[in-house]
Each structure stands twice: as structure tokens, then as C-alpha cells.
């Protein structure tokens, strides 16, 4: 299986309950003394796309091999999409929708 590179979305109590209610709690991993994280995977192609669309983001090649420094509003939208689609593999669609809608994307509800 091809290597993937996560976008880590940390989950607070409120979101944890939301994910539990939606039957999605098993998508979560536990790290750092029981903290819950949604590791949304990106293929190498998706990773490069994310880094291009969001230049403030960085790929941590040295340690975690994850995509970091994405602003909260971007991660919130990715979270929204994961909940709507009930799956983790959403980044291709996410990038596509953002490219199509531009900044209006942030005010649109995920259909």
C-alpha cells in the first residue's frame, strides 16, 4: 500500500461525543496520554496539492511525516467533511471543492 501523510485533527470532548453519536469514534487514534486524533490521510499527490493550495502549511519530513500548520478554519472544514462522508479519505474531494469554489468554500455547507 502506498505511503500516506496525515493531517492530524485533534478532538475535544464535544467533538468526541459528536463522533461517538455518528458511530465514527473508531476512526480516532489515541496519542499523548489518551488524546484523540483524527489522522486524515493524504497520498503524495494530495499532500503536494494541499501544500500548494495552502502555502502556510508545512510538511514535517523530518519527524512526523505529517502536514502541519494548516489554519484551524481549514482543519475545521476537513473535520466537517469527514463527519459528512463518514470516512477519512476525503482530501481529494476537499481540494477539488476548494479549487472550484475558492474562498466561498469556507461559508458553504458540505453537501
Amino acid at each position, binding site marked *: 500500500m502506498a505511503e500516506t501523510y496525515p493531517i*492530524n*485533527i*485533534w*478532538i*475535544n470532548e464535544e467533538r468526541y461525543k459528536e463522533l461517538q453519536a455518528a458511530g465514527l469514534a473508531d476512526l480516532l487514534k489515541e*496519542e*499523548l*496520554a*489518551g*488524546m484523540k486524533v483524527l489522522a486524515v490521510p493524504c497520498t503524495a499527490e494530495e499532500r503536494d496539492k494541499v501544500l500548494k493550495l495552502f502555502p*502556510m502549511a*508545512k510538511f*514535517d519530513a*523530518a*519527524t*512526523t511525516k*505529517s502536514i*502541519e*500548520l*494548516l*489554519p*484551524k478554519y481549514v*482543519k475545521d472544514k476537513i473535520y466537517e467533511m469527514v463527519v459528512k462522508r463518514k470516512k477519512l479519505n476525503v482530501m481529494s474531494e476537499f481540494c477539488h471543492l476548494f479549487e472550484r469554489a475558492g474562498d466561498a468554500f469556507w461559508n458553504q455547507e458540505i453537501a
Partner: protein
Amino acid sequence: MEMIGHGGKPLVERVIADKTEAKKKIAGLKTMPASRQMATECISIAYGFFSPLEGFMKRADVDAVCKKMELADGTLWSIPIVFDISDQEIAEYGVKEGESILLTYDDNPLAIFEIEEIFTYPKDEMAFDVYGTKEEKHPGVARTYAYKDKFLGGKITLVNEPKIREPFTPYFLTPRQHRMKFQELGWQRIVAHQTRNVPHSGHEWLMKHAYIAAHGELPVESMEVIGKAISGVLVNCIVGEKRAGDYIDEAIVLAQDGLKKYGYFREDIHMTTMTFWDMRYAGPKEAVHHSIIRANLGLTHHMFGRDHAGVGTYYESYEAHRLLMSIPREKLFITPIFVLEWVYCPHCGEVTCIGLCGHWNEHQKFSGTKIRSILIDEVKPTRLIFRPEVFDIVMEAAKKYGFGSPFVGPEYLAKAKPAFSIEPL
């Protein structure tokens, strides 16, 4: 009272505190503006953070630092402290060897600069000797290449003391003030924690480890009473040029102090202060420089973890430890304390040192990247990982000083005020 600094020499203090006298001394001098970096280094020289330097280095010192990691007189020194200038500026401001000029900052008088030497030095050689590379993507090398073509060497005398802005005001102490504070606290041994981070529990345990090591064989009996500590931890935050993605200085200083404020360290064994310095990311050489600054503050011990002051993959994780161990004890005026990584062990259910805990396959590392990611998401971490009060301080600092973020972004870089100002004399 004479205070002894690095090199076993008297602590340098070149400050004219009396404004009337300062005005007399600067009357008639030519003036030249100083950049923020040069202004902070003038301040550091004049207060003795860089003792025994009395001013910006002359060529012989720069050469000895680059080639032998010492000043021309043989005192250990690892990073050149230089004042760069262009030919155009030399002509424009009428800079001449043997004359003094008045450096200004914010258009106000800052320091008298006695120009003893105008010289050149090959920047690529300086970069390679200090950083071990000539690659411009190394930020220290880039800084060296960005120097103008000539350097001025000579003594600095501060004529106008900086005004430190809030929230930094209580955290800026001169070396003399540090020493007086340690005396007041009754600390016989003080260990430095060098930082540019807000503290997670891994950092907290590194400090506790270093504190216990530094306290060593000293008696503990008096410490059964709060207020009777005889050793302490000094968190000395580096405040200087920021890069995008760094923690904002306000969050660093306030969050570090929060560890004491909320009792994670006793109030009589913990103190937070700051030092102006633009990080060079020189790894092992920077570790030596940090040890020099902290010796001048009057500290007895200095903690060094893995990857001290490095960047990218330029230095090996324990290269700074090896360099410090290679320096003869009589040249290093502080005792290094080398610490291993602390991690969370789910098996033990606690934060532990990798040198102590045997559940190696279960360890969860305190990755700085992960902690940043958690803070960006504004999710309060478990208290074993990050103290809740410290988290609140960081978030509050983000709102108050960081334009909504605890990390340096374009708005912070453009709009944040420097930590100090120079007011009219």
C-alpha cells in the same frame, strides 16, 4: 561588589545611567542609526551579557573565534559579535577609525561606539567556520551572507537604557540584577533552561531533572520550608528575531512563568527571565555561546538537551554535548548538565525519562510538531502532557498579542512591537 563573568574576568558594565552626564558625553558626536539586531547587541554588550566583550569584535577576535573558538586573548568564544556596515554608510556617516560616533535607535540616542577598526572578513569563511556549512538555507549562514561588506570594531557605551514593554517588563534583568536576585533568594546553585518554546510536560521534567542534578550533594533539610530553597531553575527565554511558525515571545515568557504561578514549581526555586539574542541556529557553537551568556548571568549550571539550538539536519543530536565535553573545565565557566529525552509512557501512566523506563516500544514522544498542532486546533491537552493553566495562558497571549495565534504569522511579523524601545534622552 565586583562580579566575575565569563573568562574569570570582571563583569562588563558600560552604561551611563545619569542622563545629564550622557548628554554631555554625546554632545557633538556624529550620529548613525543602528538596526534592531545591532541595537539589541549594543544593549547586551553594555550590560555584560557578552562579558568580557566591551564592544563589537575587531578582526583579530573574529579570526580567533572562527579558527580557534576563542577570543584573541584565549578566552573561549564561539560566535562572532560583529557590526556590519557598507562603504556607502561609512562615507554617509563619516565613520573613521579613532573617532566615536553616537548610535541611534528609533531616532533617539542609544550608545557611543568608539571606532577602533574598520575591517573586512571573508563571509563564506566566517559562515563555514561557525556553522560548518556554506549552504544559504541554514539561517545562520544566510544571516552571515547578508552582512554588509565591512565591519566596525570597538567599545560600546550605552547612554540611554532601553524601555522594556509589557508584558516583558518584569522579565528583563541585567546580569547584575540576575545575580542580586539569586543572592536575595539564597540560591547557591542555579541551572539554566534555555528556551524558545512554551512548556509542555516534557520540558517541565527536563527542568526537574536538571534541577535535581544541579542541586546534587547540597543539603535538602532546609527545603522542607517553602522560601528556604538553596538552588533554583532559571528559565532564560531568548527574545529576538522571529521566523514564521515560531511561538510568539509573549506566549513563551508568560507560559514559562505560569509553571511557577500555578505551583508546578515552588515559587522559591523557579524564575523566568529573558535575554535579547537573535538565534543563529549554530547547534554546538550556539550551545557554547548560551553557556557564556548564562555564566555571565551568574548561573552555575546549564541544561543541554538533544539537538540544542540546531536546525534541519546540520548537526547530530548530541553534537553540542560532545563539543561542550571537549572544552577544558577551566575555560567553561559553567557546569553543563546533559539530559535525555522525557516521554509519556502509557504503561507507567506517567511522563518518564527514556534513560529510566524500559517500555521503549510503548513510549509516546513529545513531538514539538504535535504540540503545535494541538494548540492550533485549540484543544486543551490532558494535564499529563500540557498543564491546563499554561494552555490558557498561551491562548490568552495569542488573543492579546498574537493576532489570534500563539505562532508568529505575517501579521505578527508586520505589526508586533519590538520588546524594547529607546525613548528620547
